[in-house]
């Protein structure tokens, strides 16, 4: 599919990113490094939501809920055993005695989030239209209420704090790479095409033998898995997690990133996530000195309105930059199989 030089470009970009992180860790202070961590997490969130909302055209707002599921799961798994007995009295013994390292904990967090999305997806995705948006809104609330009331496992409204600072830029970068790779592979595969086909014309997709429900549920689950991982990274970057950590506002922020970047474009979501999360941080000093809060949000809203008026398909539409797209061979092979 890809020419050799394209492959080299991808590897080069990945290495350049690694080098950038190496330099940042050398020369920048912890505050800026943690901001960079958030930027990376936003990239994971935007690209993963794009798989659900952009590729498949499902309007999910459930990312905060999946992040909460993933974040809490991961946090409980990495919580030091000595403190577990005191803080989390409700844990079953086998869980109270386990302390996993970061990577498996993240994976399990992601899997739980995907499982959660399966439970929502199976009933809701049978319907056509915007039921998913409403249902996922409800899920954010349900997850918050559950976490608040399962005090023995989650410490309820107090949340879990004093988590080990496991997230560093390398971990975030690793998952950014995994997310981008997964999104890219998906987009240019038969499976990705079936998602796009559903977005474009459900009836025709059905006629070609694409199983609508299964494909939709799978798209939701892939997005939820990555959101769960992002939740775990987030929790161990902030070193605390409460039921209120992941709110509806977060869902809107990520949706805005996807819309501005272009529904279906991985490059678009990547850039939009980087720009937006950096802009919000950039306005913070200004907000503090003027003692006026919300300037960042106002600017973001303005950008969204301007994009919707002048470029409603988003920065990149559905496509990727030409020099990164596969299928440059001369034959008629197009984008076969993969």
């Amino acid at each position, binding site marked *: 599919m890809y020419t050799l030089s394209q492959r080299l470009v991808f590897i080069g970009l990945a290495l350049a990113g690694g080098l950038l992180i190496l330099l940042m860790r050398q020369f920048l202070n912890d505050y800026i490094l943690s901001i960079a961590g958030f930027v990376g997490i936003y990239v994971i969130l935007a690209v993963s939501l794009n798989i659900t909302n952009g590729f498949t055209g499902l309007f999910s707002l459930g990312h905060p809920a999946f992040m909460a599921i993933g974040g809490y799961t991961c946090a409980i798994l990495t919580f030091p055993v000595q403190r577990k007995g005191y803080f989390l009295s409700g844990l079953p013994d086998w869980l109270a005695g386990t302390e996993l390292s970061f990577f498996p904990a993240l994976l399990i967090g992601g899997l739980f989030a995907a499982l959660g999305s399966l439970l929502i997806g199976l009933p809701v995705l049978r319907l056509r239209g915007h039921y998913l948006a409403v249902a996922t809104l409800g899920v954010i609330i349900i997850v918050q209420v559950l976490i608040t009331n399962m005090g023995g496992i989650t410490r309820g409204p107090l949340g879990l704090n004093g988590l080990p600072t496991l997230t560093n830029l390398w971990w975030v970068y690793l998952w950014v790479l995994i997310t981008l790779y997964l999104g890219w592979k998906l987009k240019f595969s038969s499976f990705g095409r*079936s998602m796009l*086909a559903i977005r474009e014309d459900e009836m025709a997709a059905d006629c070609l*033998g694409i199983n609508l429900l299964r494909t939709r549920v799978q798209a939701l689950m892939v997005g939820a898995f990555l959101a769960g991982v992002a939740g775990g990274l987030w929790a161990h970057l902030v070193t605390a997690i409460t039921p209120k950590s992941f709110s509806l506002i977060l869902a809107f922020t990520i949706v805005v990133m996807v819309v501005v970047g272009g529904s279906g474009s991985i490059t678009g979501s990547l850039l939009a996530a980087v720009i937006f999360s950096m802009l919000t941080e950039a306005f913070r000093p200004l907000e503090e000195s003027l003692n006026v809060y919300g300037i960042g949000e106002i600017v973001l809203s303005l950008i969204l309105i301007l994009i919707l008026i002048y470029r409603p398909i988003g920065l990149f539409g559905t496509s990727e930059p030409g020099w990164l797209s596969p299928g440059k061979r001369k034959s008629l092979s*197009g984008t*076969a*199989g993969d």
Partner: protein
Amino acid sequence: MLKIEDLHVYRGRTYVLKGISMEIAQGEVVALIGANGAGKTTTLKTISGLLPMKQGSISYKPDRTVQSSSLAGTGVEDIVRLGICHCPEGRGIFAGLSTAENLMAGAYLRRDKAAIQEDYQRVCKLFPILGERRKQVAGSLSGGEQAMLAIARALMGRPKLLLLDEPSLGLAPLVVATIFEMLAEINQQGITILLVEQNAVMALELAHRAYVLETGTVALSGPSREIASDDRVRKAYLGGRT
């Protein structure tokens, strides 16, 4: 190849097909004509599994060596696997995808990469314009090109029976003629076609046999030539004088 017996279908609460029976033999082109609301599209959708049947049976025998099987209760996906490809009304082009991606989506259920490539080349030979436009976003193709793309995409599924719903819809007469030539060629390659058409003249010219539907029942059936010379049909669909 396909045998429909006493088929009753409801769409919501509306009683659309009131017991139709028809038969399609291997290698045939069969036309299904009739006025709006007669149940033509409903018949196709029921065959391809998009609509459930209330009563009756559809049995399908892909080729001579295989036992015929009932399509009742079979999912769309499995029906496509059995070699029945439905080209929906209004074409259902994936406007945001490129021409090549549209064609590849047609081979969604297939895993034989080499054969898919072969078919891709074959389809591009049959419709050269699609090969030329392979990178173009399908939404920017002309109406005629989109109609060809829809047929070509269905061919990518290696159908044995092709269900076509109004391929001539909204096209200029010259383009319609081209499309029908293509259909004749596709049929010659051994693909059986069930064709739903408003354009009865063209449909009866291409088809070997035809069924005329009227408000959910088969009003008339027989070889195309006979149908075309039937007074009632001439009056109602062919614009002929009595």
